[in-house]
């Protein structure tokens, strides 16, 4: 009972701290939104284009890119302006069309189209998108050039033949499916991927930030004074753990409920998702408790906390999908509780898993939680009773 009160007081302290309104409630929401915008679907990436001069091919390529709904095309006056826009981040990639494309291809040469992109992830993806759109337009041209060499006929006439045939061709269709299933499940919602990653990141961040409250409690001698009342050491330790746990849980429930309501994020089986959140909060509570008992300087703890929370999240695949890690990095990722929690959420959403399916992930998280809480309880006992 006393332990529960200590826990509740701790959660209240967290909620009353005004800066936490920002860090716990506003900031995670902003990040989910921002990541959704960055990597999501419906906010189309902007591609800049400059043309060296007017011509049939030029307008065909511009038209093809304009028709593509997955990108937004913006025209610039010169190639320098496109390059500057890419450098400054106004557009994500740029296409630089040369002058006299029509005469170049008519004389049998290939045209050199420039491409510039930002060094972040989307560059390669956009390049293949642009390349396939241009390839579509240039296909009859290439065919005509080929036929001209073979037959020696006039380029313009051959091009007309090629364009006539091109309309009736059947390309190879690429079909994607998952093992044992007819179709690959539709891509996750725009916010789905971001939401579980952000949940894992912020639950841990908030739990580690909670360590400074514990340090303050110790610094001010509150724990020692509690010992002089009929409160057992056990109650203090359990209570402080409950406080950290409650803080992490509040953060997690907030993100889960909010993303569910605002963005209709699919969290899968509710029981399973809740269990993962509870287990993850317990791991976070253990880590926060451990830091709170080992450090005696809350500024040091805050610095280490931010570093650990962001570093582990990155390593655990909460910032970049772990499936793209190298095998070594994937093993490293699974040293973090983050990776296990994310695996659990993925199992629930992608495979429509239930609680039974995520037992391994829950088990690993439970081991982490028990280990960290046990270690932390021991250190806290030492820290409080040390003269």
């Amino acid at each position, binding site marked *: 009972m006393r332990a529960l009160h200590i826990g509740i007081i701790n959660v209240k302290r967290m909620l009353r701290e005004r800066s936490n309104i920002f860090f716990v409630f506003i900031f995670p929401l902003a990040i989910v939104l921002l990541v959704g915008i960055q990597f999501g679907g419906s906010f189309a990436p902007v591609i800049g284009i400059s043309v060296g001069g007017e011509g049939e091919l030029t307008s065909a390529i511009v038209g093809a890119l304009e028709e593509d709904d997955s990108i937004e095309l913006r025209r610039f006056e010169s190639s320098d302006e496109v390059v500057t826009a890419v450098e400054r981040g106004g557009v994500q990639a740029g296409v*630089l069309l040369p002058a006299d494309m029509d005469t170049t291809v008519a004389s049998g040469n290939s045209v050199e189209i420039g*491409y510039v992109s930002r060094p972040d992830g989307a560059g390669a993806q956009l390049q293949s998108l642009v390349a*396939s759109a241009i*390839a579509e337009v240039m296909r009859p041209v290439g065919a005509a050039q080929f036929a001209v060499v073979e037959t020696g006929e006039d380029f313009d006439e051959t091009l007309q033949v090629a364009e006539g045939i091109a309309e009736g061709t059947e390309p190879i269709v690429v079909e994607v499916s998952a093992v044992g299933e007819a179709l690959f499940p539709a891509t996750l919602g725009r916010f789905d991927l971001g939401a579980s990653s952000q949940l894992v990141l912020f639950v841990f961040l908030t739990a580690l930030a909670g360590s400074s409250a514990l340090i303050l409690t110790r610094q001010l001698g509150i724990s020692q004074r509690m010992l002089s009342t009929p409160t057992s050491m056990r109650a203090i330790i359990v209570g402080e753990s409950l406080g950290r746990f409650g803080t992490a849980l509040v953060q997690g429930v907030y993100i889960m409920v909010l993303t569910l309501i605002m963005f209709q994020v699919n969290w899968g089986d509710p029981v399973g998702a809740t269990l993962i959140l509870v287990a993850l909060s317990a791991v976070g509570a253990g880590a926060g408790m451990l830091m709170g008992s080992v450090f005696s300087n809350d500024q040091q703890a805050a610095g280490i906390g931010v*570093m650990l929370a962001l570093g582990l999240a990155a390593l655990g695949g909460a910032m970049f999908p772990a499936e793209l890690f190298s095998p070594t990095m994937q093993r490293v990722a699974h040293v973090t509780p983050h990776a296990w929690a994310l695996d659990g959420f993925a199992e629930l959403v992608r495979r429509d898993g239930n609680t039974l399916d995520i037992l391994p992930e829950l088990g690993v998280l439970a081991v982490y939680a028990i280990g960290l809480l046990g270690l932390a309880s021991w250190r806290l006992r030492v820290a409080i009773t040390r003269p």
Partner: protein
Amino acid sequence: MGAAFRIAAKDLKLRVRDRSAFILGILAPLVLAFIFDAIFGSAATGTGLGLDYGLVDDDQSQVSAAFASVLEGAESEDILTVEVYDERAAADSAIGDDDIDAYFFIPSGLEQAVFANRSSTIEIVGDIDSPTSTQIAASFAEQFSSGVASAQLAVATTAGVTGSPVTPDFVDSLSQDPAIAGRSFDLTDRSAETKQLDASTYFAAGMAAFFLFFTVQFGVNGLLEEERDGTLARLMAAPIPRISLVAGKAILSFVLGLVSMTVLVVATSLLMDASWGAPLGVALLVVAGVLAAVGIMGLVAAITKTPEGAGNLGSIIAVILGMLGGTFFPIGATGGVLSALTYITPHAWFLRGLADLSSDAPWTAALPAAGAIMMFAVVTGLLAWLLLRRRLTR
């Protein structure tokens, strides 16, 4: 002024012994830059992404061999690995064993369908837990399909012009390889010629700028700590001009920021091959950046009452400016309002200045960005100075 330096020196000693400034100013940004570079760096280059694919070729034709050689080409460039399986069952179980992320299945009759201009299919079967790798596999196949379509059209056009039917014999009679028909254009990636930071430098610079705003807080917030602890009243009773007290804390902030930035620039250059650019230009940006951080955090200290309040508001502002300034991920690329908002932060100008210095630009390339950062420093610094002076002399 002597008093100001003595106060700064005393506080510096305290901060060095306390180690918090070391953790926030050097350790945290360095460790995080390392981790981010290790994880995101491979995404930027497109190699070492751990893409493991399988190939089941039931067609055993020239077309399917061409596809296999496309994959092998990508394998030799370290983009992916490809394992050939005799039958689908083996590939299916390889996915089950997590040996591969996805496999390509080329059904028999693909080549015939291509020659006869009938519809045909390449199947991608992916691991449900590797949706991104599977998507990448699909885009490989689509690129190939686009190439085949070009070759197909080239053959058909030639046949159309000469009036002969498309048969294997006709294809053999051609003097060129139809695959070249897709090469009527080259999409050349010229991103290397643009002035942008490479991944390592970006993460190093982003983290350094982000944590700089926390590091300088140790200095300016000291004034509020002295106020809380009652030592400020005693200092004010001493024969020291009151303004020296503010100057002392500002100097400490500046020194802490400068030392942390210098260590980070040197350490990331040596340890993770970050290329910051012309030293003089970098120095200008760093000095301007540290001054801006001191100004902004000084202003925060001036408008808050307690060191805790200043710490909290300071962290909020540092996090907002850092995010908006694109220190974690480039914000400008999202387009719209955000790409304009990013330039209300000194962080964005700092990163832009470094980008301007890239590809061996002279140090003067950093001048516009350094000037913009100095604007932040002067405006916020002056405001902070006026507010703090009023607070001390009242």
